[in-house]
Structure formats: C-alpha cells, structure tokens
C-alpha cells in the first residue's frame, strides 16, 4: 500500500503534481482571506485567485487520474542525484552573483561570476576564463550602462571604503 502511494504521488512527474496540489490548496486558502475593498466590487479581490485555485486543483486531479505508472522513471535512472547537484550548483552561483552585484557593484561582480563560471564549466586555465570575464564585463558595461544609460548598483563595499 505504502509503495503504491509513493508511486502515485512521489515518483517522477507525479512529485511535481503533488507539490502543485499543495501550492494550489495554500493559494486557495490565502485567497479566501483577502478582504473586499469596495462595495461596487461584487466578487472581491479574492474571487479570481480562488477560481484559479479550484481550476488548478481540478487539473491536478485530472492528472492523477490519467497518470501512467512508468512516466518519468526512466529519466530518473539516467540522471543520478550527484549529477543533479552539479547542474543546480550553477544556480547557487547565480544567486551569489546577484548578491555580489549589491556588494561590489555590477562590473566587478560580472567579471568574478563569468571567470569562475567559465572555469567551473571546464575551461583549462584561469587566464582564459579571466579573459572571457573581462571581455563580457566590458561588453555588458558599455551596452547597458554607457549606451542604454541604465544605472546598476555601484556596490556597498566601495561606498563603505570611501566612507559614504
């Protein structure tokens, strides 16, 4: 029985559907608590989200009814857990890059991220990685900042050093 439940709700693509079901339930309950803001507004700010929540739950139910036992399983066998971590690792690097922009500013953060990213993805020497980082930093800076006149963070670190 336990194995059946695990297979139906927690394997392969069914895991995503289970998580989406939980999300739709939470979303629906949250939508129920949204107060009406205006007498003219007959249905209130929560009505449309509630409709979406119900629709999402119905679709999840349809999915579980139509689910086939073997979907997603083959893929699981090919890609192991550690390979998974290797792929998602770059996501943490991106988050670090974003936080770095706030800390040291856009151009240095771009340089650091691209250099480390290129090396992480298999470039043999740090020198080539740094060269790619430098070129991309210059290209992005000249286009976004110089040409489009967009203001990015200059970095709290430099402001702190300059005593501002």
């Amino acid at each position, binding site marked *: 029985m336990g194995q059946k439940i695990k297979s139906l709700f927690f394997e*392969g*693509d069914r*895991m*995503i*559907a289970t998580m*989406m079901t939980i*999300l*739709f339930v939470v*979303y629906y309950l949250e939508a129920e608590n*949204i107060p*009406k*803001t205006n007498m*003219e*507004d*007959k249905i209130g*700010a929560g*009505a*449309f*989200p509630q409709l*979406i929540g119900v*629709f*999402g739950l119905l*679709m*999840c139910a*349809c*999915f579980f009814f*139509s689910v086939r036992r073997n*979907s*997603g399983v083959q893929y699981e066998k090919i*890609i192991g857990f550690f*390979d*998974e971590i*290797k*792929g*998602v*690792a*770059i*996501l943490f690097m*991106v*988050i670090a*890059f*974003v*936080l770095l*922009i*706030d800390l040291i500013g856009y151009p240095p953060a*771009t340089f650091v*991220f*691209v250099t480390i*990213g*290129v090396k992480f*993805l*298999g*470039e043999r020497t740090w020198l080539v990685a740094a060269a*790619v980082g430098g070129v991309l930093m210059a290209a*992005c800076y000249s286009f*976004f900042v110089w040409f*489009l006149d967009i*203001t*990015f*963070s200059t970095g709290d670190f430099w402001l702190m050093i300059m005593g501002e």
Partner: protein
Amino acid sequence: MDASVFDSLMLGFEVALTPTNLLYSFVGALLGTIIGVLPGVGSAGALALLLPLVFKLDPIGSIIMLAAAYTGVMYGGSTASILLNVPGDTSAVVACLDGHQMARQGRAGPALCIAAIGSYVAGTIAVVGLMLLAPFLAEAALRFSSQEYFALYVFGLTAVAALAGKSLPKAMIAMALGLMVATVGTDLMGARRFIFGISDLQEGIEFLAVPLGLFAVSEVLINARNIRSGGTFEVMKHKIYISMKELKESIGAIFRGGILGFFIGVLPGAGAGIAAFVSYSVEVQVSKTPEKFGTGMIQGVAGPESANNAASAGAMVPMLALGIPGSATTAVMLGAFYIIDVQPGPLLFTQHPDIVWGLIAALYLGNVMLLIFNLPMVGVFVRILYLPMRWLLPMIIVVAASGVLSKNGAILDVLFMCGFGAIGYYFRKYDFPLAPIILGAVLGDNMEIAFRQSMMMMQGDIWPMFTRPIVATLFVMSALSLFLPNIIRAWSKRNLDVEEDV
C-alpha cells in the same frame, strides 16, 4: 484600391524615401534590432530610449526612425530566442519553442531567415490592412467592452491545447501556475494579494523574470549539468540559408500569422504576445503533424513571428485613427506625436497626411530594411553558436540578469528569475510544458481586470454575458479549439481501429 488611398500612400513613400528619411529608417531598424536582442528593454523601452531624439531631429524623420525601431525590436527579440533560448520580450517567447529546437538541430540559419521573411511579409500585410481598414477597425475595436475582452482572453488561454505536448492536464497545471503569478501584487481596487509583507512585491512579480528564468536559466542549468556530468557537446555545422522546401512549408503560416496578428494587434491591450501565442495555436491545429510542434517545426517560427510583427502595425490603428494607445509601445509613440505637436485622432489623416502616411510607409520600409541587413547578418548571428558552451552559459546568465535588473534595479526580480529557473529545470525534466506558464502570466492580469469589470457591470451575475453575440461566438470558438482537435483525433483513431479490425 481606392484612388485617394493609393495617392496618399504614394505621398507617404515620397516622404519616407528621401535620402535623409531612408537613413533614419536604417538607423532605427539597426538600433531596434540591437536593443531587441537583449532582454529587458522591450519595444516600449527601446522607443522610450530613442524618444529624446524627437526633440533634435526633424518631426517626420524622428517618427520614421521610431517606427523602424519598433519593427527592429520585434525582429531582434526573436534572434536571442532562437539562438540562445533567451526571450527578450513576451512576443519572442513563442520563438523559443520551435526556433531554439531548430537551432539545436543545426538549423538556426533557416529559423532566423524565416523570422526575417515572415516579419517582412506580415509587415506588408499589416500596412495594407492599416491603410485600408484603419478607421473602420478602430471603431469596431471600441465596441469591445470588458465582457468581450474577457471572452477574448479565454479564447487566448485555449492556445494551451497547442502548447500541451503529450499531456493536457500537465499543460493546464502549468497554465494555472502562470495565472497565479499574474495575481501577485496590488489588484485594480487596491487590495494587496500574496505579497507576504514584501514591499517590492506590491507591483507584482516582474514579468520578464518569468520567461528568462523558465527558458534561459533552465537551459543553462540543463547544459551545465550535462557538462559537469562529463557530457560532450558536438560543435554542429549550422545551415545558414533557408531552402525552397522550407520556404514553401512556411508560406501558409506566414499569411495566416500576418492576417491574424494584424486583427489582434488592433484590439487595445491585446498585444503582440497574445498574437504570437494564438498564431502558434492555429498552426498546430491546421497542421497535419501537430505532434511534431515543439521539436523544430518551421511553421512554429514562421506563424508567430509574422503575427507579432503584424500586431505591432495593427496596434497603430487605434492610435492613429482615434488617438488611443493600445499598448505601452504605442503610448510612447503617442508621446512622440505630442512632442512634434501633432494630435492623433480622426482628423490626423486629413490634417497631417504627410506624417501619417509617412509613418505607414516607414513601417513598410522598416521591414524592407530588416530584410536587407538581417538576411546577410544571419551567418554572423549563427556564429554565436560556435562559441564553446562553457563560455556561452555564463554569458547567457549575465545578459539575462542584466536585462531583469535593468527594468527596476531590484535584486528580488533576479532572485525570482533564479526561482523560475529552478521551476523550469524540474518542469522540463518531468515533461511539464513551460510555455503555458507564460501564457497564463501574460493573460492573467488583463483577464482578471476584464472579468471583474464585467461582474461589476452585470451586478455579479455572469449569465447576461453569454447573450452578447461576440462573447458567445468567442466562447464557442474557445470550446471548439480546446476540444475539437482531441475529438477529431479520437474519431480518426477509432475509424482506423475499425478498419484494421475489418
């Protein structure tokens, strides 16, 4: 064609074809393409960037340059989608579906060529529509009340059937997620929803973070995982130009997309993104091999690319004929008209024929310019794909993050992009389609506004809505487009089975 319309168009071409205005058109198309390639700026942003030039250049020249830039941005957005799976704008998202698959098969050149040719042909269709139907269509579009818009958005949502791939429930779940994303933030009555005390969320989740995360970041994650797991990337030899066979296969899609896109573009608020999605849905439905869409079908690029270009010209109709901007981009364009002291509206065609017909001719010339310099440039664009994957992946991230940051400068938006990247990664891994999320996010906001305005008008009773002819027609069309293909497929399968039994 009415002789006076033809004479007016000739006047427009006389204005637009002077050497100076041709130069403005060229510069506009070039700048538009460059800006369009990068995510974040979008067509409204690109035109806003060029707006200060209106003060400096001569009035007609500046309007011509803006019109050419508009067409350039629409084309540029699809280039990044096809080559790198990085959609620069809503309207470019659909190009990721089959365009990027074509690039992965070594057919980036034909995909870019058909985007340019489709844009040109659709631009021509739209210009013809613009000059013949502008006043009539503008009035008809104004008859659309919130009920009709709601029905139109429901019809737009049925495009999910075309984006579903193997499983309709999976696509519907993804679409519901997109609709959820659209409801975050302050609603039209000022109620704050799902913001959990985060003030940056009051304006909602920045839309650009959604497609960039789902497509660009997830693409990077998948490739990074393959590289780190010891996978090798074959450097593929890319075909540069399109074959006659591919061109023939695309002609129908281009014309369908062009006509459909123009009419959707005329409706204020509908926009090029919806036109592209609806066109893709139509292409899947008319195809003899709908199951191949999403695997690199050239019609999946030709139709939506034509539709989004035609929609951008269609959006000019209410602006020129009534002075009502139907989108952010036409609002910027309207600003340019005010700067040069011209009031768009019913009298524009008689009071300033040189400007209005010059603009119409410029839209056409912009498309010609795009064709002239983009077809030879296809080979150059395709060379991007020869860069080593280990260089390309961090570049995609930096360009995507810069694009999102350039919108509001909010770090939270980039973190959302990362979050959607993770969602995209796992959705792709387990075969949940990504495009329905975008469809829901694009339509959700406007759909809710139309729904609630309708409910207010009808005192909370939904049934009177169905007595309106346009609404009823759109709902019937929605039901047909969602269920008819499945019914026909089931019926033909049953017939085949019966024949086999016999």
